[in-house]
Structure formats: structure tokens, C-alpha cells
């Protein structure tokens, strides 16, 4: 187990290193000049030059990279070209994304698993078709389309929920949750199909497996077969799917965060890309990568802890 985690961590580090290089050199191709982007088109060239010098963006690409990565490794994310500290931008954004992701997960995971299992138990019937096809369709309708439709219905027509996600400062817990409901609901639509499909496939596979037959032939009631024998095997792959969705939730929600004016990490990335704010871009991408890798690693660990085949290895 320790060996497995160690190996995964090492691979993860390589991936992150590659990622930092890709983003860095990729961002060099982004058009425009950093100082110019900050100061705007009408600033004098002298002012732009001075700012570039101050930001260090006039140095060689390699030395910029090295000083940035050096800082990153010491936990110093540096300063945004806008002068704010990068951790001051990325940190809160990450927290916000995490809050939204968490709420979405709390709603969607039980719902989708229940839906998927229900569909599997009714395989081929109308309810199964409805859940499977409906879920898949909801999944592939772009998130911002959901956002627009939900705002229209719930915020503007019925008027029960706020149209933006950012609760006023000092708002209590429940108010904050209230503000997050609509965006979370969009994510529920988008994620439901994924997770339900996985849960359904896993359950069908487990239902068809010989051991379920063994249990039935033992004389176990169907319900017990499902709950005692099927689910513990069928829900394992679902964990991995939920984990990969973390990648989408933390960083991929550019459109939704835009519509709901939510300063999550997706927004931070979007803005950084547009403004060529390299320190923010690089750190945010790396952090998104870290979150993704950690989530998948945790899922793998959870998977192996829950799965005796991996937990104990084969000893014979």
C-alpha cells in the first residue's frame, strides 16, 4: 500500500512538473505584453517598460520560470501582475470552488447513486430508460445552458432564489448555501448522468456476476442480495468517477462561475488567461492539477481500502 501510494505520488510529481512547464511555455505564446495589459492601451511606452521591469517580465523566460518555481516550492506563489499576492487570489477562489463542489456533491452523489442503482434494478424498463437517457442528456447539455435556464425560472420567473452565487459579506451559513443552490443545481444536472451511469453499469455487472447468483441460490432475499452482495462491489468504480469530476468542478466551471458571478478558481484562471497574468495562471493551473491528482489518488486509496483484492494483494 505504502509502495503504491509512493509510486503514485512520484508519478503525480512528474505530471505536475510537466504541467508547470507546459503552462509556462504555453503562456509565453499568449498574445500581448504583460505591462501593456495591466496599464491599458493608452499608457505611454515608458510606463509599460517600467512596469515590465518592475514585474520582471522583461527577464529571460527561463529565469522567470526558475524564480517562480523556486517560490512555489517554498510556498510563495509570488505576486500577480496586478500587484496582489497570488495566494490572496487563488486561495479564496479555491475555497469558493470547493464550497460549490462540496454542495453539488452532497446533492448529486446520493441522488445519482440511488438513480443508477434503481435503473440497474429495473434494467430495460421505462424507468431505466428514463434515468439513463435523461441523465446522459442532462449531462451533455452545457452547464451554462442549465445556468441560464435555471436563472430564468427560479430567479426571475418564480423569484425564489438569487441569480448570483456570491452571498453578501458576512452572510450566515444558510444564506451562503441559498446563494449556491442554483449553481449547484446546474452541476447536479451535469454530473448526475455521469455518476448514475457508472453506478448503473457497476450494479448491472454485479447483479450478473456469479456471486450474486450464488447468493440468490443460497436463498437470500433479493433485497439482501442487492444490499449485502451487489452494492459493495458495484459502487467501487463510482468512487473513481466522482473523483475525476473534481477536476471539472475545481477549475472547469468557467462558464457557470461567469454567469453566477462567482469568483471561483475557474474565474481566476479565465481572468489570468485573458490578462496574461502568468503568476496567477501558472499557480492556479498547478493547484488545479494538484487538486485533481490528489482527488484521484484519494479515490484510488479509498478504492483499494474498500476493495480487499487490492488491500491484501494475493498471498497464495
Amino acid at each position: 500500500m505504502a509502495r503504491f501510494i509512493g509510486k503514485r505520488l512520484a508519478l503525480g510529481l512528474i505530471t505536475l512538473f510537466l504541467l508547470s512547464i507546459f503552462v509556462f511555455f504555453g503562456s509565453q505564446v499568449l498574445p500581448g505584453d504583460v505591462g501593456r495589459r495591466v496599464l491599458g492601451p493608452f499608457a505611454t511606452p515608458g510606463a509599460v517598460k517600467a512596469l515590465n521591469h518592475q514585474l520582471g517580465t522583461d527577464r529571460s523566460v527561463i529565469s522567470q520560470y526558475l524564480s517562480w518555481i523556486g517560490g512555489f516550492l517554498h510556498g510563495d506563489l509570488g505576486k500577480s501582475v496586478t500587484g496582489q499576492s497570488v495566494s490572496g487570489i487563488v486561495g479564496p477562489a479555491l475555497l469558493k470552488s470547493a464550497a460549490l463542489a462540496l454542495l453539488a456533491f452532497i446533492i448529486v452523489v446520493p441522488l445519482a447513486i440511488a438513480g443508477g442503482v434503481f435503473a440497474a434494478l429495473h434494467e430495460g424498463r421505462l424507468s431505466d430508460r428514463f434515468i439513463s437517457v435523461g441523465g446522459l442528456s442532462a449531462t451533455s447539455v452545457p452547464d451554462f445552458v442549465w445556468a441560464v435556464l435555471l436563472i430564468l425560472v427560479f430567479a426571475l420567473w418564480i423569484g425564489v432564489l438569487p441569480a448570483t452565487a456570491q452571498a453578501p459579506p458576512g452572510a450566515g451559513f444558510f444564506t451562503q448555501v441559498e446563494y449556491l443552490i442554483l449553481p449547484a443545481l446546474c452541476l447536479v444536472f451535469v454530473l448526475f448522468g455521469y455518476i448514475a451511469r457508472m453506478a448503473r453499469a457497476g450494479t448491472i455487472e454485479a447483479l450478473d456476476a456469479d456471486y450474486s447468483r450464488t447468493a440468490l441460490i443460497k436463498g437470500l432475499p433479493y433485497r439482501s442480495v442487492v444490499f449485502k452482495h451487489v452494492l459493495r462491489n458495484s459502487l467501487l468504480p463510482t468512487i473513481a468517477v466522482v473523483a475525476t469530476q473534481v477536476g471539472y468542478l475545481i477549475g472547469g466551471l468557467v462558464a457557470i462561475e461567469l454567469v453566477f458571478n462567482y469568483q471561483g478558481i475557474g474565474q481566476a484562471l479565465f481572468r489570468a488567461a485573458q490578462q496574461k497574468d502568468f503568476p496567477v495562471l501558472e499557480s492556479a493551473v498547478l493547484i488545479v492539477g494538484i487538486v485533481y491528482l490528489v482527488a484521484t489518488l484519494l479515490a484510488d486509496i479509498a478504492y483499494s481500502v474498500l476493495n480487499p483484492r487490492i488491500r491484501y494483494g494475493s498471498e497464495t
Partner: protein
Amino acid sequence: MTGAAPTETSPQQETAPALELNDLEVEYRVRGIWRRVLRGVSFEIAQGESYGLVGESGCGKSTAAFAALRYLPRNGRVSGGSINLGGHDLIAMTGEEVRKLRIKTVSMVYQNPGSALNPSIKIGDQVAEVYRLMGVGDDEATERAQEMLGKVRMSDPARVMERYPHQLSGGMNQRVVIAMALASDPTLLILDEPTTGLDATVEGEVLDLVNGLRAEFGTSLLFISHNLGVIGKMCDRMGVLYAGRLVEEGRVQEVFENPRHPYTVGLLRCIPRGGVRKDQQRLDTIAGFLPGLGAELPGCVFADRCGLMKALGSEERCQGTEPPMHELGGGHGARCHFHEQAQTLPRVIEPVPAPRAASDKNAVPVLRAENVRKTFHQEGHAVHALADVEFALAPGETLGLVGESGSGKTTLARTLLGLTEADEGSVVELDGTPLASVIAKRKGEQVRALQIVFQNPDSALNRRFSIHRIIARALTTLIGLSGEPRESRLRELAHSVRFDVRLIGARPAQLSGGLKQRVAIARAFAGDPQVVVCDEPTSALDVSVQAAILNLLVELQGEKGVAYLFISHDLGVVRYVSDRIAVLYLGRLMELGGAETVFEPPQHPYTEALLSAVATAEGAERPRIRLEGEIPSAAEPPSGCVFHTRCPRYLGAICEEQEPPLEEVEPGHFMRCHIPVDELRTIQQSPPPPRPDRARSPDAAAQ
């Protein structure tokens, strides 16, 4: 059945047969159409009786077994007839009643023990669950589960209780399944090919166990197998199923000795029995194929393939009217209009052996291996799959290679072929010229000369290619043919493997297993090879098809003078085709010699054990030698003689300390054992005494 709750013991139950099927009809819905699978199947199993069901793959054996539990796949239904289980009419029962019945009265064990157990629940809990279902409290359930595991001769049951299925070997898992099945002390135990995936040595052990427990519990058995030998060993009576219809039924001995249905007759003729060899007799086969699922068969279900019908010219009767079950006395019955003449069924194949090209024992060996080693590196472990293998293969000769699963047979084949790179220092020579260890570095000549026929024709043929493309490609790459010469050579080749050229445009999926194997053989012979490795070429096939393929291989050898390295775990088959036999254990050659020298009588303790495990259709058996424990892992081979941990003739410390060399004990006969060959021949006459050093339980060695 008069509404008596199945859990109560009604008076009927005492006398009622354990299982009674009456005119059972089962259908599966495939692509929207209901198709008949079982056609009026009737048989009964008396209390305490063991009933065998045989028939080729797809004839409906498993369906009958599951129907007996009223457990059908979602797309299946019982469309007629009745099922009586211990006097209860299963079909009339509610789901809940059936469930209660399953708890107490009937259990089932099926083929793949690995998948029959829940991978994420501890063995102990899975077994105890049966007791809890019967209403036993938790603690007692656990206790009794442990007791039951002991009864299936599981060493250290307490430890096994805490384990998960993947931590046990296939044989041990099957014993757990059997323990679970017998835990409720059922009146009927259904075993559906319980040993098919297991090694012969393990199979023997499991069958012994079932026999022992059956005696102890007084359980009735429904035993399904395609292996007639196993049926012979296990059953009192048997039924022969064909295309969903029971075509013959009777006492096992009676059916084997006096079969009265042409199908049974043909089936028995297909297997190499009584130590026949290729230069004595050719095997018979059954022409044609099982009719498709749900086919309309107004007459005898076997008519299409029946040689007797053709010989008698009785097409009208046989294809027009369904023969009744003719009672022949003693419970023997056959569904054949001409059952008296069944044994005159004409042979499809003349018994005359195929002519053989003279093989010159003193010629330069076409293939010679020396010091062949292969070490795999797996997650830091070194797995020594082959150690110092050496042998020579004369032109036109067949060398049989036997050994338990994991002994390195396939690895040896792949190493010779260059598919797996041998370790440094290994020597493989073709016609006296050393071969590069990877195929990519071998010359075209050499590549052509060494070919293989794989075990599974499904994966050996590219399923996206037409047969034409598969063979033509081999002709192009191996001997550079193209255009018309290639086409004519292709037709010749198809002809020589008895493959109908009209099917040349088909895809593999449209062909039967036997036909696919013919294509694979044609491909191997495309470049006129000198040596063809056959890695279990018939183990995926039904017996009748196996016979045809074996015949073909023998014929081709006669025509082309090719040498075979023939791998199989079926000792009967190996003995039939081989001139010489090599016995492999943990990557080491234990014995090598002429087929008769090695087998008749066996001398090396391992060979002896292998042979004794085999159940033959003759029923005549040598005393079973129990091989103790599991095969050791190739990653940590035992010290000294690698066989010492399981050897029935274990001598003592010397076996654990010194590895015996492979010695030529008589001309052409090599053996690896500390016991001198003469002594071996003598002690072979009597069963081995229990091993003195085995105070430990047998399974401890495995863990």
C-alpha cells in the same frame, strides 16, 4: 403439491424423488424471439442417488440445472412441464416459497469457483450466511461455518474464515463453495462442471471430496460434465442431453458399455481411450453441428448428424417423427427409432492409422533446446518460469509436453518461438543453427520453419479479418506469394486442412470452434514449417471436434513430415499423439522419454501422481495418489528438488537439500529424481505411505 409449506417435512417428501423433471420446456428470448432450449426433458433423481448429465456444449445442461432451482436468466422462461423438488411443485410456488426451498433443500456449485464467491466478503461470513438464513444465531453460525470448512478438508479453517476469495487458490475456493452448498444439508446438490477450470490434480481432489461428503450427508447429486470420465467416476445413472432433449438414459456402466443412441455411441468413440495411440487407430468423430438455438426439429433432434440414419436410408422416419424413449430395461432408455442398431453406427473415419513419414531418430534434430531459462520480473520479484530446459526434437516427431497449470508449458513454447525473449545463455537451435532469442531478429527462413497453433482459436484469429485474408496474409509474408499463385496455394492449403473453400469469405465469428482451429492450422502450415508448436490446440473444443482436429494434425504430420511440440494437460490426448513425452514441473523437466516408457507404467513420482489423478471413461482406476498442497510459486521455488514439498515418495533431507540432476536412466529416457529408476518401478506397484514429515496439514504448504 397441496400447499404444504416447503419447510415442513411432509410425508410425501420421504419417498418423493429428490428431483423430478417432467416434460420440461424452457425458452430464451433472443433478439425478440422466444427460442426453445429444453425440449420436454424428463428425468428423476432418487434420494441419495447421483445422476450425471452429459452432452456437448450448448445442449442445455446448465439450463436444466438452473431450471431445477427455478432460477432462469431474465430472458428465460419455463414454457411447459413441471419441476418437482423433493415433492414440491416448483412452478406453482410463490417466489418466497422457492427461496425457502433454496435455503434448505437444494444447493448448487458451478464452474468457476473464483467468481462464485463474493470478492469483497470474507469467506467465513459467506459460509456463515447460509446458517444465518436458516435462522441460526450469529455466533453459532460462525462456529458451524468453521466446522463445515473443516469438513471440506480445509486446513486451518479459522484462518480461512478471515480471508477473501482472491487469497485462496481455485481448488480451495471450490471447496469453500462446496462447503457453502452442503452447509444446509440439502437433499439435492447440483454440480455444474465443478472442476472444468481446474487442474487434473486438483480436479481429482475435489471429486474425491464430493464423493466423500455425499456418502456422509446422503445427498442426491445432479452432476453435469462434458467429461465422460468424470461422470463415470461420480455417477450412478446418467442422461445424455442433445439439443435440449434427453436422448439416452441409464446406469452409467450400462450406457458406457452398451450405448443405444447413435449420439452416445459417437461420443464414446471420439475420446482416445485405453491408451490408444495415433499409429494404432484414428479417432472417430461426429459430423455436423448442434442445431441452432430454438431450431424447428419435428423429428429426431440428432437426425441431421446421424450416420446411422444415412446408412439405413431412414430419413423420412427419423426426420419426420420424434422417436419415443424406448425402455430397454433396468432404467436404460434411448430415443432412437433404431436403437438396436445404434452400435452399428458407421464410423465417420476409418480406424486405419494415417501413414507416417519415416522419422529418423539419428538425424540432426530439427529443433534443439539447451539451458533454456526464462525469468520474469514482476513487481520486484523474479519469477523463474523456466530453468535449464533441454530437449531435442527429431524431424517428423511429436514431443508431448505435460504439466500442471503454471508449470511453464506456454512459456517454453513462446520462448522457442521467440515471442518471449529467453534469458541470456539459453540456446535454441533450428537444424543445428542457433536462433536469435527474439523473433524480430530471426531470418525469414527460420520464422517460417517454426510456427504455432494456439489454444483458443477465437483469439488466435483476428476476428475482423475474413478467413481468406488471414491465410493469404500468411502466404504473402511467409513465402512472398501474391496474385494467382497465392490463390491456388491458398485453396490447396484449405483443402489440406479440410476447410471448405466456399467458406473462405466468412469471418471467424461465423465459424464453429473446430473450423476456426482448422484455419489456425492452415495458417501455421502456410510456410511449410518444420516444427509446429501446438499449445493445447483442442482444450477449448468439444470432444467430437477434438477428435477431428487430432486426426487432422496426425494426417498433416504424415503428409508433410512436420515435427510437433504438443502441449496438453489431457494425458489421454498427449499419449495418443506423442512419440515422446516431457513432463514439466515448476519450469523444470522432471522426465523425458518415449510415450510408453514414461506412462506405462509411470515411474517418476510426479508423473505417477499426474496419471493417477485422471478419471478415465473406462472407470478402471489406479489408486489415487493425493498430491499434497498447492503448486509452489515459481517466484520462490522450493529448495532442493522442487517437487519435494508435494512428493508422495519423499525420501528425506536429501530431497530438500539437493536438486537431483536430469539423468539419462536408460537410452532416451531422462529423469530427475533421487530415487533410482529400478526402485521407482518397484515401489510404483503399491500406493505411497503417508509422509512421515507431514505433521503439518497439507494446505499449510501453500500458505
